[in-house]
């Protein structure tokens, strides 16, 4: 009976059509699983946009939906970067917003009334399902094993390295960009294999979509030429390469130039020059190839040397001259920091200050990829064994992806697809070898030996393939069981990482009560709601740039600086205002028409991402512009410590940031016992005084504190003497203390 059912089951899997049906079902399930595992954040918290950048994307999407495409394209935003404003339509990658706008309109047309917020929240999970399918297609181009594609889809669907950027609510460019990346690579491989113009054109179109979506498109721009170059160096130039590459480049470059933010960059910057260079080089090769087919080889050689050498020297000279003459812009700072990890720290603090631009710590690889990081080299090795054009691609991608992932944390994202593909190839090869129930028989072996004898005369020993098989049932079952256990552990690890590390919106914080129940800390939204309801429509909020997008998105108030860090000087101005004495800061704030100042303070709750911890970056960035007025050294004690307690330096204690953070803080505690829980520091008994600002709002857990900038004094005193007068101090004493004169701003 049981044998019969087994037989029936085995037969079901044998038919070709049943197999493809099964494959479709499995793929659909994988897509479903990858969507489901990204919904932790919605279930635990709510349908909310996460973090910082997504808030801008969300705001832009709302603008797009409300005002239509043309207004969005020409959008000048006067509510950010006050008083400069931002040409938003020309300085963003519109792919994400346009995609969700289109989905929203499509759903409306189908009479499904859905909130644009929900479209935005669920866009990343939906696209992750597509990414899994794209990974399946890409892997299927690599091997003949169908299981490899399915495994790759599964890995891609649940690998934490990708989930980290695509949980529900993480409405960022990467949400759709990784799908586009993988799919563009698939189309490229397809175009290269068939040598087809049409596939090349598809590749270019998706490349254009990718350019419209994410700045990381430069990765494709560099990887495809590199692949072509490696193929040429290996002597694998083919007409198929010519057709696919030139079609991709000619159409793709034009497509990328349609995006206003990219504009003329593809013909002007060095990042894009390799692609152009390979394009030109391929033309030469195609011509040489034609000549070779036409003339005898002897003549061809003289022709080749003179011709190729001359052209190469000429084009190199043109490139060097053009770069030095400034026709082609040199490499940008972010690019330099890819080669020299210390570069950004020295030259561009604003790039170094972003945590995701830091070099990767090695446990991160295991954390984000788990089992795959071990089988990844195996997969690359297997690619070496076959080494067709598409395997070269995987190898090149693997090498460069690993390097970049090691340099910058966030480029782990670009490594993940190739790790999934290579890992799937490795695991499916193992499983395919061990899962075959049939043991090789004597006859097979004899036939193989005979074949080997025949072949040994002509071929190399390694070129002949002896029949290798696994004989023992034990070894088979052991190996398969071990792989199954590894894969199960992988799934458990992924789920655990997703639920614990990557599903927090960071706008809403969760903590545990002593009895184990969940407690939601909602200070951010509390404070932004307060701003929205209690301040004027055009009240300018000054805060560090991290919170600019959130203030714009949640509080809908103009900000001075935000996460689109396009103007370093403006950010440094805010940094200077935060890190200077009140007498210096007040004129700056008046000049920028600041109405409220917002700081994030974690001292009461022990919240690590607060402004005091980021303070040194503000100092550094300000110091970069005003080295005479702000000095990082002055914020450290003589022993080189960064302290906030009684032994903090005078500069630190007098800085606006310090004062705003700890103002009135000691009133919460019994006298002399105020403790900053984040930094475990006992604060001085007398708290700081503020004379140019007044406290306007402090959230429940003191995470966000908002101060109102005082207007000029009614009777013309400066603020310090006014405060002193109100406290009942003698005027003489206050006058003595007076610092530099306060500028009057009319």
């Amino acid at each position, binding site marked *: 009976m049981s044998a019969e059912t087994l037989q029936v089951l085995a037969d079901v899997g044998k038919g070709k059509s049943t197999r493809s049906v099964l494959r479709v079902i499995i793929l659909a399930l994988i897509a479903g699983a990858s969507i489901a595992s990204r919904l932790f954040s919605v279930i635990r918290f709510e349908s909310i946009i996460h973090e910082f950048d997504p808030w801008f994307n969300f705001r832009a999407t709302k603008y797009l939906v409300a005002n239509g495409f043309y207004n969005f394209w020409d959008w000048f935003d006067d509510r950010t970067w006050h008083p400069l404003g931002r040409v938003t339509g020309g300085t963003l990658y519109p792919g994400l917003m346009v995609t969700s706008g289109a989905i929203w309109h499509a759903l409306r047309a189908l009479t499904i009334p859905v909130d644009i917020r929900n479209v935005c929240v669920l866009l990343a999970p939906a696209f992750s399902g597509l990414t899994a399918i794209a990974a399946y297609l890409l892997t299927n181009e690599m091997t003949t094993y169908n299981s490899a594609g399915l495994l790759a889809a599964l890995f891609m669907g649940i690998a934490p390295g990708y989930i980290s950027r695509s949980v529900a609510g993480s409405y960022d460019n990467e949400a759709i960009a990784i799908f586009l990346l993988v799919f563009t690579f698939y189309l490229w491989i397809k175009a290269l294999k068939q040598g087809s113009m049409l596939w090349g054109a598809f590749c270019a179109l998706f490349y254009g979509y990718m350019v419209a979506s994410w700045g990381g498109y430069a990765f494709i721009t560099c990887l495809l030429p590199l692949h072509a170059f490696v193929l040429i160096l290996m002597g694998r130039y083919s007409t198929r390469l010519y057709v696919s590459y030139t079609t991709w480049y000619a159409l793709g470059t034009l497509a990328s130039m349609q995006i206003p933010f990219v504009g003329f960059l593809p013909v002007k910057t060095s990042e894009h020059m390799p692609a152009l260079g390979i394009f030109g080089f391929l033309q030469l090769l195609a011509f040489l190839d034609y000549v070779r087919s036409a003339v005898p080889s002897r003549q061809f050689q003289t022709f080749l040397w003179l011709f190729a050498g*001359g052209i190469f020297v000429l084009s190199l000279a043109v490139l060097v001259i053009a770069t030095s003459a400034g026709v082609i812009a040199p490499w940008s700072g972010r690019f330099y920091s890819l080669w020299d990890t210390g570069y950004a720290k020295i030259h561009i603090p604003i790039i170094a200050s972003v945590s995701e631009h830091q070099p990767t710590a090695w446990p991160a690889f295991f954390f984000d990829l788990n089992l795959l990081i071990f089988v990844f080299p195996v997969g690359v090795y297997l690619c070496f064994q076959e080494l067709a054009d598409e395997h070269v691609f995987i190898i090149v991608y693997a090498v460069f992806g690993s390097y970049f992932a090691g340099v910058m944390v966030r480029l782990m994202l670009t490594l993940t697809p190739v790790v999934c593909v290579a890992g799937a190839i490795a695991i499916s090869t193992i499983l395919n070898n061990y899962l075959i129930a049939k043991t090789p028989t004597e006859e097979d072996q004899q036939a193989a030996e005979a074949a080997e004898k025949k072949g040994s005369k002509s071929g190399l020993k390694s070129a002949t393939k002896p029949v290798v098989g696994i004989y023992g049932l034990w070894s088979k079952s052991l190996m398969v069981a071990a792989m199954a256990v590894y894969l199960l552990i992988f799934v458990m690890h992924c789920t655990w990482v997703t639920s614990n590390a990557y599903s927090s919106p960071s706008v809403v914080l969760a903590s545990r009560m002593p009895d184990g129940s969940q407690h939601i800390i909602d200070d951010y939204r509390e404070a932004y709601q307060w701003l929205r309801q209690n301040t004027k429509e055009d009240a300018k909020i000054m805060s560090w740039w991290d919170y600019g997008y959130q203030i714009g998105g949640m509080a809908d108030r103009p900000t001075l600086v935000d996460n689109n860090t396009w103007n370093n000087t403006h950010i440094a101005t805010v940094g200077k205002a935060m890190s200077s004495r009140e007498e210096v800061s007040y004129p700056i704030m008046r000049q920028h028409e600041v109405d409220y100042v917002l700081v994030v303070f974690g001292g009461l709750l022990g919240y690590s991402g607060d402004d005091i911890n980021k303070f040194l970056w503000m100092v550094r960035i300000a110091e970069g512009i005003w080295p005479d007025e702000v000095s990082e050294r002055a914020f450290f004690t003589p022993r080189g410590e960064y302290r906030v307690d009684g032994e903090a330096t005078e500069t630190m204690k007098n800085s606006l940031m310090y004062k705003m953070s700890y103002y009135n803080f000691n009133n919460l505690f019994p006298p002399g016992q105020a403790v900053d829980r984040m930094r475990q520091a006992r604060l001085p008994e007398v708290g700081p005084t503020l004379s140019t600002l007044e406290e306007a709002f402090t959230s429940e857990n003191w995470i966000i504190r908002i101060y109102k900038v005082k207007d000029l004094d009614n009777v013309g005193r400066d603020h310090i003497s006014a405060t002193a007068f109100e406290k009942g101090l003698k005027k003489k004493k206050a006058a003595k203390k007076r610092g530099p004169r306060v500028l009057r701003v009319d």
Partner: protein
Amino acid sequence: MAPKRNNANRGVSPNPKTATTTSAAVPLPPNPNPSAPIPGSRPSSAHSTVSTHPKTSASAPVSQTWDKVISNLTSHYQKSSPQRTKLLDAFMAFLVVVGVLQFVYCVLAGNYPFNAFLSGFSATVGQFVLTASLRIQTTEANKKDFPAVSPERAFADYVVCSLILHFFCVNFIN
């Protein structure tokens, strides 16, 4: 490609005329280039090289092999290319001429409407490349490289790609 190389030629072209009188070996290679990428226009320019070089060149063997290469190429081309391919080649030659004209204009008169220049120039380059691809795919000798692409399919691809190309160009031209 063609414009780029022509760019290089344009930069060099004053040199060969002056330099051929002094030494033949070095400046010679660039000289046949203008004819090189354009099989259609080759006969005429090949004639000119054949007629001018022996007079000026001092070192005989190099120029002789060159003459041989050129003559071999032309004869091979005329023998083995079907009429349709020659038509394509003529079109490509036309595109190269247009591309060179645009580039010369850009250098002489400035690139002020840079959008317009870029889209016009990329239209010629892109069309050239697509035509070259079509030529490669329809050549009998390359048939084994493209098992999936029949000549009809190649032409359909060509039309689709050209449509996409010109859509982008028109969109970009401002």
